[in-house]
């Protein structure tokens, strides 16, 4: 009818984007592209870095104690400065990347899966089951999470898997409550009712109509949680209940540099920068993903493609 005024005339003829089309969409968003490149570099460094580095970053060099950054005479690895035992910070950041990302990603994924699943049940089914889930959530939320972590880790011992599980449990309520609130709203929308009236099973209604609407919110939430979990893990490690030496994480590095903040700020600063950069990259990427997967918004990314045609 009045097709002339609708957006993205050329773009609309395109069916659901394939993998390659998604990559083309990523190219349209310069910030998201930069974020993706940065994350790939960090992950690669975490995977292949430690064996290649060998002793660099672990061996002490008392001549270079708390050496300030940007002094090329000391060699490339000392470019970001050195820590209290003269170990180059850049190398230590690369070594710490693997445990840091592993713990944070595992904890975020675990809490997301559990939280979203319970949130879907509480939101869609409601009733007594929903009430029980919500009250348990309230209990977890009202209990100080650090105290909970301390108790659990004291009893079970500070292994990495325990740290992941504890961090996941304390963050489940965030996903659960968000998911439940969204589901309550979405399930009363007409297209969900339309599916139910057509005879759709509960599984189909939830997986095809409700979950896809919740995913963008959850993706954004996960990126924020990623930073939170990294810092929470640092607090636990600081208290001696998290990652144990000789392993260390960015959070641990921030915590160790705390006592030198006045004299050698770079000890805490650089690992902190990496925590912030990873979080920000994830955030930019999730924002791009939200737009790219939403047919109503996708034209924003396709605009330039459309004008080429």
């Amino acid at each position, binding site marked *: *009818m*009045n097709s002339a005024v609708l957006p993205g005339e050329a773009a609309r003829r395109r069916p659901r984007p394939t993998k390659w089309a998604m990559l083309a969409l990523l190219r349209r968003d310069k910030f998201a592209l930069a974020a993706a490149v940065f994350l790939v570099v960090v992950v690669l460094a975490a995977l292949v870095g430690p064996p290649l580095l060998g002793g660099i970053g672990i061996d002490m060099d008392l001549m270079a104690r708390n050496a300030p950054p940007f002094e090329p005479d000391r060699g490339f690895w000392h470019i970001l400065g050195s820590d209290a035992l003269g170990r180059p910070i850049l190398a230590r950041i690369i070594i710490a990347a693997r445990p840091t990302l592993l713990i944070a990603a595992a904890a975020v994924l675990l809490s997301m899966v559990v939280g979203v699943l319970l949130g879907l049940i509480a939101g869609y089914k409601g009733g007594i089951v929903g009430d029980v889930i919500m009250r348990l959530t309230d209990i977890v939320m009202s209990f100080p999470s650090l105290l909970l972590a301390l108790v659990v880790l004291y009893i079970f011992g500070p292994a990495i898997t325990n740290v992941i599980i504890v961090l996941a449990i304390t963050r489940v309520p965030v996903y659960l409550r968000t998911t439940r609130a969204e589901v309550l709203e979405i399930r009363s929308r007409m*297209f969900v009712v339309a599916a139910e009236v*057509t*005879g*759709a099973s509960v599984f189909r209604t939830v997986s095809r109509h409700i979950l896809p609407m919740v995913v963008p919110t959850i993706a954004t939430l996960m990126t924020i949680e990623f930073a939170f979990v990294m810092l929470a893990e640092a607090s636990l490690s600081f208290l001696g209940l998290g990652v144990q030496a000789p392993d260390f994480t960015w959070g641990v590095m921030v915590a160790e540099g705390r006592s030198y903040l006045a004299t050698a700020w770079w000890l805490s600063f650089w690992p902190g920068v990496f925590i912030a950069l990873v979080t920000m990259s994830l955030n930019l990427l999730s924002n791009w993903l939200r737009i790219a997967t939403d*047919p109503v918004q996708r034209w924003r990314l396709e605009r330039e493609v459309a004008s080429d045609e």
Partner: protein
Amino acid sequence: MSETLLEVRDLSVEFRSSRGITRAVQNVSWSVAPGETLAILGESGSGKSVSANAVMGLIDSPPGHITSGTAMYGGRDLLQLSGAQRRGINGKSISMIFQDPLAHLNPVYPVGWQIEETLRIHGVSSGEARKRALELLEQVKLPNARQRLGDYPHQFSGGQRQRIMIAMAVALRPDLLIADEPTTALDVTVQARILDLLKELQRESGMGMVLITHDLGVVAQVADRVVVMKDGQVVEGGAVGDVFRRPAHPYTRKLLSAVPGQEPFRHVEQKPEVLVEAKGLVKEYLLASNPFKVGATPTTRALDDVSFKLHAGETLGIVGESGSGKTTLARTLLRLTQPTAGEIAYKGTNVFSLRGRALREFRRKLQVVFQDPTASLNPRMSIHEIVSEPWAIHAGVLPRAEWRAGVEDLLVQVGLKPEHADRYPHQFSGGQRQRIAIARALALQPEIILCDEAVSALDVSVQAQVIALLKELQKKHGLAYIFIAHDLPLVRDFADRVLVMCKGKLVEEGTTEEIFARPKDPYTVELINASPHPDPERLDRHEIA
């Protein structure tokens, strides 16, 4: 009339975005004199609200730009005012009321306080303001005005809220009142009373009125002059009687002929087969009660002893205003809620006892088209996925390899193109979306389609097209429709039999001709009379009476 109050000349407004320039209105001119009512008539997207918004300074810039034109009011050009000058005129000399009064009243303040605020901003003392607020509420005929000053917006009905909005708009005795679709969200009987009120206030104060509407009936009932807009341009203007009797522009003629309620009554032979039979349906809802009070919880009856039959191949119209229980009835028929008492039989079996296979079979045979096509289509699914979903749910109806062809065939049947299958709902207009919803309903070859206000959200000309499509599909597939609507003329054209509902009760039942030509129940009579009719002849008679 020689004197003009506001004269808009050659106004052009465009909205610039990265996607290009949309010319919302082009070279629009109109004027309004004191005591006169000018109607700006147009369908959605015609730009009918834009010129009034420009006059009020409500165009956001960017993206909006006023590229040409003047709006002369009292020797000044309203389009050139500064913010301070604007505040001196808006509300005081020119005021505006909107379609949705709930959105424009602040929910956290009592209505009396909000009216007083309007007065206080413009320098009326506190005590004086209180007195005036009460006077105003009495003037707009709000029942028990004195007791209700302290009530909050949610405690009023839609019509009462619109009265409160009107009270606020006329509080400072403006010269000009701009009403943007003031009655669109209201029931016909309420609409009639609000329009009467506006006319009366106008007679008392001699203010000019600009009424923006899509409803030709409203125009015929209240306006002196009318301008018809299409695609941002004025296509026709003049006295209402002249325009309606001798429309010059083809678009106006098309609009007038699309108005429902002009066709002869349908006479269809009733088939003996009863598809659905409702017996003594009752649905009670618990009201909020005081937990410390002993005794039964108070209940309200949304459905009160409703019984009817639906025969194969017929169209059963169900009419009622908001709160009449017609939506509850639809939900009960769809088995979305359980009735408190009574039963619904589908071909002799109670649908509430259906389980498993039998339930799926029932779901297959009864399909639904909802009011808002935007909300009833999943925005993240392509048209192909939406239309083929019923086949995914009911395995075995159509093998997956034939879905593509099946979807394309359905799209062609509802007047869309096969290549539309790869698009998404937001890329279609409202009427097209409703066609998609109809295609989805047809996918399972149902016997009954329940249309819950299926065309109420659409423009008149689109409405006529969708109704024509429904009729055609009925002929082709022998469908039975349950057509729930608040719009009487529409039901008159489309239904074979009509049920009239009021406060959960069925007050009258009969063939369409019986209901419209010889209504028996006083409520039916009121409903038919309140419905605005786009015929100035009829209007003249109405005014004499």
